[in-house]
């Protein structure tokens, strides 16, 4: 969509967020809500600005665990899905086991990972993988199975190997499904690493929330939650960007502008 108006453009999502923050501050000010219940935006921002290194380090810790969990889940998830699609035996056994496992509340497994992997990053990453991998496997299996009879005929008429069939037809055709699974898995990886930190940790935003709650440091709890929200949002938009990059050809991506924008009147107008 060509910009006809030369005004300054602000993504509508950012405007919405600013509006929410204003509303938050207004409610706190008008009703004189006490700081230890709900601190004002200014208090929370002050808290972060006054301890930049602390919050930066904790955010990076949680973020890196999340990204590691996500990467492992994608690699193993797509691999498992391919194995399930290509093997009747694995379809009957592994897929059934995965479905059954998926119905166990995975949060309940977090203490086990601490016993097995300790209180460091490994148990957080394991938790993230555990929670997010199912979304990828299930969507990837669906995608890999959705090759149309027409495409199968096309592949067979070209007499390529099964390898070509997988990499030139089946996998690209499954990409929209796999990315849909990845978007869900990205959020779930973050949930997983926070759950891991809640159970036992010395670092991370989840740990900050838990330890601050213990001493009724509401400002710190809110600061960590705000950073988590920002991290989650950034990860979500990173996935949206990846989607546009990888499947610009998909129906969902065609004729799509970068982000919906609100056009502000230009100062000169």
């Amino acid at each position: 969509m060509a910009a006809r108006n030369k005004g300054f453009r602000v993504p509508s999502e950012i405007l919405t967020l600013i509006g929410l923050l204003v509303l938050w501050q207004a409610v706190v000010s008008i009703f004189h809500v006490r700081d230890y219940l709900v601190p004002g935006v200014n208090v929370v921002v002050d808290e972060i600005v006054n301890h930049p290194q602390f919050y930066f380090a904790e955010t990076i810790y949680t973020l890196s665990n999340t990204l590691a969990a996500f990467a492992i889940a994608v690699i193993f998830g797509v691999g498992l899905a391919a194995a399930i699609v290509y093997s009747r035996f694995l379809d009957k056994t592994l897929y059934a086991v995965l479905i059954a496992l998926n119905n166990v509340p995975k949060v309940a497994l977090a203490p086990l990972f601490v016993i097995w992997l300790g209180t460091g990053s490994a148990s957080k990453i394991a938790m993230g993988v555990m929670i997010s991998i199912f979304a990828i496997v299930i969507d990837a299996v669906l995608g890999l199975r959705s090759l149309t009879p027409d495409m199968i005929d096309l592949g067979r008429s070209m007499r390529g190997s099964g390898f070509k069939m997988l990499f030139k037809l089946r996998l690209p055709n499954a990409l929209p499904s796999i990315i849909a699974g990845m978007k869900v898995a990205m959020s779930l990886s973050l949930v997983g690493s926070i759950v891991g930190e809640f159970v036992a940790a010395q670092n991370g935003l989840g740990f900050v929330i838990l330890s601050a709650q213990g001493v009724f440091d509401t400002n710190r709890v809110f600061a960590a939650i705000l950073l988590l929200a920002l991290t989650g949002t950034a990860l979500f938009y990173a996935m949206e960007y990846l989607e546009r990059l990888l499947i610009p050809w998909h129906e969902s991506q065609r004729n799509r502008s970068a982000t919906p924008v609100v056009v502000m009147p230009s100062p000169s107008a």
Partner: protein
Amino acid sequence: MTLAAAAKNEDRPSTPDRPSAIEIDALGKVYQSSGSLITALRSVTLGVRRGEFVSLLGPSGCGKTTLLRIVANLEAPTSGRVRLSGRGLDGLGFVFQRDVLLNWRNIIDNVLLPIEFKGKKRKAYRDRARELLVTFGLEGFEDKRPWELSGGMRQRAAICRALIDDPELLLMDEPFGALDALTRDELNVELQDLWQRSNKTAMFVTHSITEAVFLSDRVAVISDKPGRIVELMEVDFPRPRSLDIREEAKFAAYSRHLRDVLERHGAFRKR
């Protein structure tokens, strides 16, 4: 080999006893459908000579597509066999009813897909792909995505894809069935020109009498349930043919004859 070179190499003997390209021998196909057996094809025997254009004409669901698919080894016959000469199945290009262009590839990459499938060097075929696209009026659309093209252009691209590896046999399954009448006429002429210049053997499935007569050296009429060849008609018009021949009395006579055969075998509903 470039198209121009192919045209130069052309030496199509006019005698009918050319070596055969496809030999279909007592082919039968029986399907099992919800407990009952359906005979799709019964003892179909047909020889297609090298460089010949043969149409399979018949009502919907008569098994003509099944026959083509068995020739292309996309389905196995229940009885009988098919023999292909030359490069065999490797020298075969298939044009499907739906174009089956891949949305994640642009047009030239779609055309080059068979080259990648066969593990050949893409680079060596880029010029040929361009040449084919030019031949079919798709110049300048190399980098477009399939959804940006009209139905006729998409099917043209699908034909280019079938031709990229210079096949000896071109099998087409109602390739123009979904197109409007004008586009269809246009593509009939383009296909004829290309076939004539490139010395290919063509098998063409259609339910259009006009299309069959216009394009073919011979038309095989296939009857419904069970599918078998009930008539094999030579079409004697000089090449290249222009769309005008459709107004000639001889063309009308051919069409009339095919319609009679179809009618006799119950292709049309009684009124």
